[in-house]
């Protein structure tokens, strides 16, 4: 690996390590497998950065690599919940046996469960939106049109807002 690529890897680590950890933990419920997936993302990124030519932002590159590795992981999974498109989900799914003591913890658990049930494209948009990425950046990373991103973001906002309707203390910022 060249020094430039290693410097990029360290820069990416300083900026995006928590986001990639959250992505791994959101698509893989098993903590040990999630850690393996996280390292798989690091490895793919480490190898790919030798090809980084600056034609897109480092952030776009890092997220593309991480989300594509995550999508491959999901497609390799032998077992898992049946995947349902975002537009046919009416409410946030049950968080299973998670003992959530607050509405905040519960909604995080439910959003995690929702992410694991979504097809890859919907999952990618939702996770990037949760990271605070703009619609334009999400479109650049995923390759979707701005309209397709907006539709999905609108849908997830409605689902989360529905969850908080009876809990006004925990708002969702638009």
């Amino acid at each position, binding site marked *: 690996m060249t020094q430039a690529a290693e410097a990029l890897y360290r820069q990416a680590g300083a900026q995006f390590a*928590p986001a*990639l950890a959250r992505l791994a933990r959101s698509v893989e419920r098993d903590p040990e497998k999630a850690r393996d997936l996280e390292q798989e993302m690091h*490895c793919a990124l*480490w190898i790919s950065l030798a090809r*980084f030519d600056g034609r897109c932002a480092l952030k776009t590159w890092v997220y*593309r690599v991480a989300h594509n590795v995550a999508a491959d992981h999901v497609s390799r999974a032998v077992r898992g919940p049946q995947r349902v498109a975002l537009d046919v989900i009416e409410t946030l799914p049950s968080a299973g046996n998670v003992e959530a003591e607050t509405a905040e913890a519960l909604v*995080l658990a439910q959003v995690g469960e929702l992410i694991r049930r979504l097809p890859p494209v919907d999952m990618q948009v939702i996770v990037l939106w*949760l990271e605070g990425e703009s619609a334009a950046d999400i479109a650049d990373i*995923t390759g979707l049109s701005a309209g397709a991103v907006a539709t999905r973001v609108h849908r997830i906002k409605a689902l989360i807002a529905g969850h908080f309707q009876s809990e006004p203390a925990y708002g*969702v910022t638009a």
Partner: protein
Amino acid sequence: MTTPPLPQWTALARDAVFTDPTEMLLKADRFDQTIRRRNWREYAAGVSGVLLSIGMAAFFAWVGDYAIVGAVMVTGMGFLVVMHNLRRHASPVERLPEEPCIEHLRRQYRYQAEALHSVASWYIGPLVPGFLAMQAAIFWNAAQDRGWEEALTDKGWPFALIVAFLIGVIALNRWAARDLRRKLAALETLD
């Protein structure tokens, strides 16, 4: 970047760090070793298959059953072709994880759908000549002892069951390929 819509989300895993580059080098070495071991196992399985075919052919040549000898040789060659095809089809799509996510998904779905749809030609097909030759030899040997009618009645059922099984495998793979193509078509309409 905008304000994260659910601050609790971005508060998670704040202490996460990337794997150290030195450790990454070790992992890459281990990965190379894993690939070398897998290649060696595949090579050993191929060689074992060929040796088994040669051994069986030699045995049946010794007992003078040349129809079975021919069938075993054809089966062995079919086995080699399947090994070669498995290696070709099992290799993943060219790794370009930095491409836009939707392009990556499309390539994966297209590749997998094609592999599943064509399973009859690259997996089942090469074994068919050996299978037919073996069945013909079995029918022929049984007919020499008991006549064709009894041979076909006795040996016909196993033959039919195996044919039905192979057709089932092809149908299941085609069904899975259709499912992937539906997903691919849905992706095409997204952007």
